């Protein structure tokens, strides 16, 4: 442990600061969105109290008590809640739905790639492996401690992003939590571990940190899309019957069948089982990838 801590404390510091920054950003946006929604609801109530037409009313009879008050209130927010909220917070889709997994994948690869490759580049593996600790124990300890730390990072980030997603869902920006399935909760744990494992393995095989980071990111994208597709489509689904194509509330629509007039979907109750399945599938891949990394460390790293 003391070797790992002394070698990687700088890395731990920047990972911690990055995590704190992105989580603070997510929670800050979540707080801002909650604040906006609370203000909006107060505004709607104030409009109603003043007898003003509600923001989404196009016509009708209203008992306006003070036109001046209504004009003043109308200037505070524009139109119906959802379009206004979407216009204000639409940027979060790119930043947090796509950006969070990307940031965590980069962190995972940047921690994993140098784990073996940097040692080989600096030839310090010759000092590490000739102490009284076996090479296997050195590898297992380094990988385990780093992976456990990154899993914690992924979990914190996943929970922070889920909190933001919940708020954005309240405002009508996101129709259900399935939309951010791969960007929240346990999914981020699996993704950061996958990126880390690929970085470690490519580092051990290529013996170059930069090349390993590049190869790790590229293969991460391929594996993420493949496993995401597999978990989404190859797991058991349910099907709507009848003339409507509407997915039941909270469901994750997959495909429509025009001939049958039905839609395949994952019901809302499948969210956590599928999160666990996705994590388990990535976990199995991670173990396999780390095993190849060990093989390269054992056979190629001197």
């Amino acid at each position, binding site marked *: 442990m003391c070797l790992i801590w*002394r070698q990687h404390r700088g890395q731990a510091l920047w990972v911690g600061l990055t995590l704190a920054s992105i989580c603070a950003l997510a929670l800050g946006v979540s707080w801002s969105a909650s604040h906006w929604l609370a203000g909006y609801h107060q505004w709607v109530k104030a409009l109603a109290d003043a007898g003003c037409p509600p923001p989404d009313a196009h016509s009708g009879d209203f008992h306006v008590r003070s036109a001046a008050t209504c004009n003043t209130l109308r200037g505070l927010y524009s139109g119906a809640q959802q379009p206004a909220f979407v216009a204000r917070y639409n940027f979060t889709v790119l930043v947090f739905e796509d950006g969070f997994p990307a940031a965590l994948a980069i962190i995972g690869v940047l921690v994993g790639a140098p784990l073996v490759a940097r040692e080989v580049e600096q*030839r310090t593996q010759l000092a590490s*492996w000739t*102490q*009284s600790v076996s090479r296997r124990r050195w590898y297992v300890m380094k990988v385990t401690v780093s992976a456990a730390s990154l899993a914690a990072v992924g979990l914190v980030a996943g929970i922070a992003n889920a909190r933001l997603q919940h708020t954005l869902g309240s405002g009508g920006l996101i129709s259900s939590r399935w939309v951010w399935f791969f960007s929240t909760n346990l999914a981020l744990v699996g993704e950061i571990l996958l990126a880390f494992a690929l970085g470690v393995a490519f580092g051990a095989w290529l013996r170059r940190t930069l090349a390993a980071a590049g190869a790790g990111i590229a293969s991460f994208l391929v594996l993420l899309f493949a496993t995401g597709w597999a978990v989404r489509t190859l797991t058991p689904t349910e099907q709507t019957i009848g003339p409507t194509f509407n997915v039941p509330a909270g469901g994750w629509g997959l495909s429509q069948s025009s001939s049958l007039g039905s839609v395949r979907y994952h019901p809302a109750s499948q969210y956590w089982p599928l999160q666990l399945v996705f994590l388990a599938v990535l976990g199995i891949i991670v173990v396999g990838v780390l095993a190849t990394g060990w093989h390269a460390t054992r056979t190629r790293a001197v």
Partner: protein
Amino acid sequence: MTSALAAESLGRRYRRDVWGLRECTIQVPAGRVVALVGPNGSGKTTLLNMAAGLLAPSTGTVQVVGASPQKRLDRIGYVAQDAPLWPRLRVEDVIEIGRCLNPLFDARMALDRIRQLGIPTRARVNSISGGQRAQVALTLVLAKHPDLMLLDEPMANLDPLARREFLTSMFASCMDTGTAVLFSSHVVAELERICDYLIVLRRGRVSLAGDVDELRRTHRVVTGPIGWRSSDSRRVINEWSGGGRTNALVRSGSSPSTGPGLEEAAPTFDELVLGYLEEDEPARQEALT
């Protein structure tokens, strides 16, 4: 008595038909300081890496104090070429790592040694000189109190003063503890001062191995007129001419047998080493003791 290092038909193949070391059979007695000599690519680093447990043999076996190197990591000290250490760590961190990773590590001795050498313990490894880094690496090894120390040209980039300081302190420590040392270097004069056992490697094979005094007894430098060739049964290892004379390093029995017009003398360490390094067709293995 168990040898500090014993290799039996040891070989390492890197690629198909590319061997780093072949058929290497040696015994390094405990407490000896062994010179490992050979041209670049002769297999010195391969032998040291296998002895340190860093490389697995392709053929044969290697044992350190009676067991495989992987089971004797706590008894082996290894300093690689240029003495690589973690560049961003402080010297005191390196010593602390040694303490954590080695159950028999003598941290107090290590810190005392570092202070005696005037190396600042708070300095980062990448900010100290090459000589100081080599000394820190040597300290990390000495504090393990190993039975076998493997030194792979650790002084390659050091200036003469730093080399002398390194050698003196290494030799003094090993004499105190009885540690066997396998010391690879290209600087034969330095090896001659401290080594009492010699291994010469060429083209991945052992050309010569044995106690230096014994090797000097069983070899002769024979000097004669230009063009002189050995006509007796003694094997000529190498010939060279100079000053109107032809010299030959020959392998003989224990007693000299001077012929007419010839002068014989025991070879110096230099002549032994260079003779075997320049040998036209190296024999498979000259001496094993």
